């Protein structure tokens, strides 16, 4: 019987297999940031262990960094970033600190450097590590104990998850983005639908996505409960990688591409679960609740809790509407927002900024609007194209790279009761600041919303 892509990549990385034990899996790339690593380095020091493969490890500062120039004002945040610097220096790990041209959100810089390649195993103490699966590898988030484990051994003991195919049939309608697609998928299968699975995204609509779009889709796999999501590499992948600083060159490139071309699911392989999505039925999507599965087409209304047959879902919806300050039956396009955020590891890449700029060109924003590039490199590229001038002319704020308003660890937060349209990945209670209310949207919807001050699809702009 044939094998799925996930099974091929997994098998390729098994260091040791024994009956009744998890596989010991080799890790090709370990990404580090300041939040989930300090206690891991402490553990190494206490046990007198070195980092086994600093040459397969890279660190950046992202979660705590302010997105306006200058030092970190919060002493606790500053200590955490300084701790990463000390640890990176002590253990010989390459670090891209604030102000460095290579600095940025950890899941933006891996692909940008060409460090993320097909067929690799990649981990990071961050659940959105699933982003890197867009290149056809197995990438997943881990906790601090596992960060320490990978630092010490470059391996992880793990049981292979089951495999799920999400087959997106047909082409996405005009104006429907990768973000709308993944929000619709999560609403369909639920926040627990992917638990225990590696998801392979397949089908025409997936094949037609750019690498940036594929990263957006894989990024939010964890919001459907799946630790990892991946997409088979193809010419789009190879074209994206070629010429990047860490991509192979010359004969090594040819050998790599030959191998990468074997990285697809065999025709006779069987997935443990298959979900089919009809792309033609999709439309711009937005969340109305407090988990990423509570979403609906932007053209619809806030649902009534009574619509949910399952009592647990019903009470979750009741709680969510109360927290969000929404009334059932309200048209989603009538919901007014205070802040728009374009950025994050979900939608902070150049393509996302271009999409927002295209809509903001020649228009004025009515809300506080933060445009935060995912990395310094994205920032430089955007500025080379003049996107920053478009944003500033529209009245938006053009910021430095970082996680920013995706989570409340840096100065960019919502005040209690404030409502945002956000291109990030989580609408959890308090995620963007205590009492803040988050609607997850695509960069296009975010930009159109900034123009009108209400949740808006670009097609509805005059």
């Amino acid at each position, binding site marked *: 019987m044939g094998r799925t892509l996930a099974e091929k990549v997994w098998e390729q990385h098994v260091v*040791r297999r024994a009956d009744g034990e998890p596989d010991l899996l080799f890790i090709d790339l370990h990404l580090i940031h300041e939040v989930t690593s300090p206690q891991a380095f402490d553990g190494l020091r206490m046990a007198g262990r070195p980092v086994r493969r600093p040459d397969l490890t890279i660190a950046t500062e992202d979660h705590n960094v302010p997105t306006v120039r200058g030092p970190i004002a*919060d002493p606790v945040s500053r200590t955490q970033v300084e701790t990463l610097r000390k640890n990176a220096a002590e253990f010989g790990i390459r670090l891209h600190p604030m102000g460095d041209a290579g600095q940025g959100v950890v899941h933006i810089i891996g692909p940008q450097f060409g460090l993320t390649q097909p067929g690799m195993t990649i981990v990071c103490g961050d*659940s959105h590590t699933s982003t890197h699966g867009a290149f056809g590898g197995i990438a997943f988030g881990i906790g601090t*104990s596992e960060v320490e*484990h990978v630092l010490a051994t*470059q391996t992880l003991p793990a049981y292979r998850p089951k495999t799920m195919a999400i087959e997106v049939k047909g082409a996405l309608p005009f104006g429907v983005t990768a973000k709308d697609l993944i929000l619709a998928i999560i609403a369909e299968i639920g926040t627990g639908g992917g638990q225990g699975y590696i998801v392979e995204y397949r089908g025409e609509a997936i094949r037609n996505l750019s690498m940036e779009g594929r990263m957006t889709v894989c990024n939010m796999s964890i919001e459907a409960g799946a630790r990892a999501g991946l997409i088979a590499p193809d010419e789009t992948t190879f074209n994206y990688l070629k010429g990047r600083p860490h991509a192979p060159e010359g004969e090594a490139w040819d050998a790599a591409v030959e191998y990468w071309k074997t990285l697809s699911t065999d025709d006779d392989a069987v997935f443990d679960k298959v979900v089919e999505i009809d792309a033609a039925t999709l439309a711009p999507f937005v969340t109305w609740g407090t988990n990423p599965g509570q979403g609906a087409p932007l053209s619809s209304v806030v649902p009534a809790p009574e619509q949910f047959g399952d009592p647990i879902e019903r009470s979750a919806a009741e709680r969510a509407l109360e927290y969000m300050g929404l009334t059932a039956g309200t048209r989603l396009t009538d919901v007014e927002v205070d802040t728009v955020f374009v950025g994050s590891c979900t939608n902070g890449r150049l393509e996302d900024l271009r999409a927002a700029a295209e809509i903001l060109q020649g228009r004025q924003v009515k809300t506080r609007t933060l445009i935060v590039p995912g990395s310094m490199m994205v920032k430089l590229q955007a500025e080379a194209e003049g996107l920053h001038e478009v944003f500033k002319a529209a009245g938006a704020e053009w910021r430095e790279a970082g996680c920013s308003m995706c989570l409340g660890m840096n100065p960019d937060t919502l005040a209690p009761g404030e409502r945002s349209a956000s291109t990030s990945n989580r609408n959890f209670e*308090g*995620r963007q600041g205590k009492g803040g209310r988050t609607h997850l949207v695509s960069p296009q919807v975010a930009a159109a919303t900034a123009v009108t001050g209400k949740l808006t699809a670009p097609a509805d702009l005059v």
Partner: protein
Amino acid sequence: MDAFVTHTGTAVPLRRSNVDTDQIIPAVWLKQVSRTGFERGLFAAWREDPSFVLNDPAYTGASILVSGPDFGTGSSREHAVWALQQYGFRVVIAARFGDIFRNNSTKMGLLPVILSPEAVETLQKAVEADPATEITVDLAERQVRAAGETWSFEIDDYTRWRLMEGLDDIGLTLRHADAIAAYESERQPWLPKTA
């Protein structure tokens, strides 16, 4: 980590689903560089509400959390596990868990127990009716016992053994350093290096 064989204690019923790790420990608490003191951040936003179940004196001293489904979804922050443990919890019982949270728990010796939604409901009702109800979570027998009933739960043999012995994963893996070195010598030459 501390070995876990069997534990008997009282429980807190948490009647919420999708308890994400941002609720268990909000992001502002993640700035700490130490491993201690996270109990103060446990459910920090919800604990500001006097009617939140953890504020009910009837549940003081409870060591088992009985939650709605999809407990520990979202962020990979192990701080969520540390916060629960440091607050005094040894076990979380739910019908479904976020994968990363469940993994992190077993690395630290906090036992995540999956029971059917019906069993969770029965336990929650029993604890709500009498907060002094004792629940026994027996890892050796893979059983939860309370209020005259017994439920079995599944956990793989290896994780169970590691928890019962209180073993450190890194030490176990380093016994296979030769296998790791052998694998490293066979890796494709084009694979990227960061330095």
